[in-house]
């Protein structure tokens, strides 16, 4: 039920934001500019639901992560009911240059839409522009290309607000006092930087909670274990840890367990992958911010099919429409509400 409500909300938000973009484009005062802009795209309208052959490419930053697998499965589920729609997935091995190469290949192969998780917003911007100019709608997932590159849509989990929500709940669990630390990802990624900023800004409202340290574990579970060991060594009174993603939070929880401090430290993650939910159930972790990655992938695919089937192209937009996924704050109290079929 909740899933359907979220999906409905997202679709509405998507249509509203797209309409907003289209409406504002229609209000442009210079018709010549409009015609010139419209001429930049060679988009052909196809009907995915009437048997037209459709090829969609999904290009991930690192296809092996649970998030990427969730999106991939969501895309495949959305398109799986139609035999005429084919989805091909590509992994870029965490390299922006690989993504640029794959983008070029996909444009040359005439894919009808591309769903892309940008490794590097600036590096990928020309490829996104090139694809849109070739009439291939590009829908970015979570990590967007640079903001001045208008493209068909961005589907994203909340970032700043996820940090805020985690901070508020964690502060409540800690009784609004104590020393806490942050385990960072790779600095420079918009989503994770915003997440951390949201967390820091909110914690600043609690004068008795001190962020005593912040170290990077590069999104890796084993590195997070080492970082957590150092935290435990340095700060005897450490009460909480906020990790920017769930894998690192899981690593921190394992390190705490190894130091016989299971459940004593309030460990939070973000993403909501199934292993983290299991750790919340077992008391190893205190909470996470859950986003349904399957729905996120499925939403991206819905927009891709919508763009393929419509006569509109990116030229009608004044800004990239954003669809923001509903986040859920998960703690031991409500983790049971997330059904098995919604755990990715």
């Amino acid at each position, binding site marked *: 039920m909740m899933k359907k409500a979220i999906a409905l909300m997202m679709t509405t938000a998507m249509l509203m934001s797209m309409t907003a973009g289209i409406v504002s484009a229609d209000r442009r005062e210079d018709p010549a500019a409009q015609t010139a802009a419209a001429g930049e795209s060679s988009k052909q309208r196809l009907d995915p639901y009437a048997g037209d052959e459709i090829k969609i490419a999904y290009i991930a930053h690192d296809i092996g992560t649970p998030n990427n697998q969730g999106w991939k499965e969501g895309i495949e589920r959305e398109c799986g009911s139609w035999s005429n729609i084919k989805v091909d997935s590509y992994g870029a091995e965490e390299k922006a240059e690989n993504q640029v190469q794959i983008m070029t290949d996909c444009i040359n192969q005439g894919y009808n839409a591309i769903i892309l998780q940008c490794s590097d917003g600036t590096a990928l911007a020309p490829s996104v522009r090139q694809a849109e100019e070739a009439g291939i709608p590009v829908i970015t997932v979570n990590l967007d290309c640079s903001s001045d590159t208008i493209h068909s849509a961005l589907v994203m989990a909340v970032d700043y607000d996820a940090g805020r929500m985690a901070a508020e709940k964690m502060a409540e669990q800690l009784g609004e006092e104590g020393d806490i630390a942050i385990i960072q990802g790779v600095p420079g990624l918009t989503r994770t930087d915003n997440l951390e900023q949201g967390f820091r800004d909110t914690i600043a409202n609690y004068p008795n909670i001190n962020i005593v340290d912040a170290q990077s574990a590069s999104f890796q579970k084993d590195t997070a274990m*080492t970082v957590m060991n*150092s935290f435990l060594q340095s700060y005897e009174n450490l009460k909480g840890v906020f990790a920017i993603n769930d894998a690192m939070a899981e690593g921190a929880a394992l390190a705490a367990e190894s130091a016989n401090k299971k459940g004593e430290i309030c460990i939070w993650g973000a993403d909501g992958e199934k292993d983290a939910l299991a750790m919340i159930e077992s008391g190893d972790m205190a909470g996470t911010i859950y986003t349904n990655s399957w729905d996120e992938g499925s939403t991206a695919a819905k927009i891709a099919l919508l763009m393929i089937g419509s006569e509109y192209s990116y030229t009608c937009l004044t800004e990239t429409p954003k669809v923001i996924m509903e986040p859920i704050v998960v703690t031991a109290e409500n983790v049971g509400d997330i059904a098995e079929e919604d755990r990715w």
Partner: protein
Amino acid sequence: MKEFNWSKYSKPLILVAFVVILSILRPKAFLSLNNFSNVLWSVSVIGIMVCGTIFVFLIGGIDLSIATLCAFTAVVVVEITHLLGDTPVAVCVGVVAALAVGALAGAVHGLIITTFHIPAFLVTFATQSIFLGLAMVLTNNKIVSCTVPAFTAIGAMKILGFPLPVYFMLVMAVISWFILRKTVYGRYVYAVGGNSMASAISGIHVKGVSIGCYVLSGLTTALGGIVLASMTQQASSSTGSGYTNDVITAGVIGGVSLLGGEGTVPGAIFGAVLMGLLNNGLNLMSVPSTHAGLVKGLVIIVAVAFDAMQHADQSKKKARKVKKRGESV
């Protein structure tokens, strides 16, 4: 009076210097058994791997497939454990299978390299993709969790305050040291690395020695993969990513020559522990990640330069002695 041989002790001295500096800077956090246990634990996987990979380095070879073979073997042990019903016996079968896969991979490397005379760099570069692909296929490119107590104990169980992986590292180091220093095979390894042509002429079965080195490397990589999977309670195609660089770096810092014929197991372990101490020190001193790389690079250069300087001095002294002896004759 016999002159004190500084070069022999330069590596332990560097470690002592590190310990002293960090003890002064963060006495409370650094100087504890628990912290030393953490440092050794954090380098145990690299330490285990370098104990086997050193054989490959010593014959002048290289293994670029360490990280992906680690992932593949980690996936093998986890998948087999699940397949056989998550029992302790299943864990044992999984561990044996993963070790066998590692040894087999090493044997294949050795056979291809020695039979077709293809550079080790190219062969292992190609096989790294194959192992990655196999890990992806086996897991359907997903993370596979494994929380079977018998399995997680490998990475988490503690004996006398130290986790099991630390003992694995020490045992592997002793075995490797013994093979290299106390057996004929070990002398052959150094001989082949020093001059394979001369070794062949003097009757050493170069092909057999080389294949043996790759098998040992595969075995320790597999053991590293098993331990890493147990520590993190999961396996995926990205398990151990970055470990190839770490293992090679540990060896090189420890004085192992990538050209072959030169290097010791204690040296390689020194390299791994130095890296662990450095990471630990940076974390304990709360050095932000933006500065950590810079500091790490500088410290490694200073430490390695100090070590190299001591060895250069020793070599000069030796050369002078030889020259004197020559003149007196």
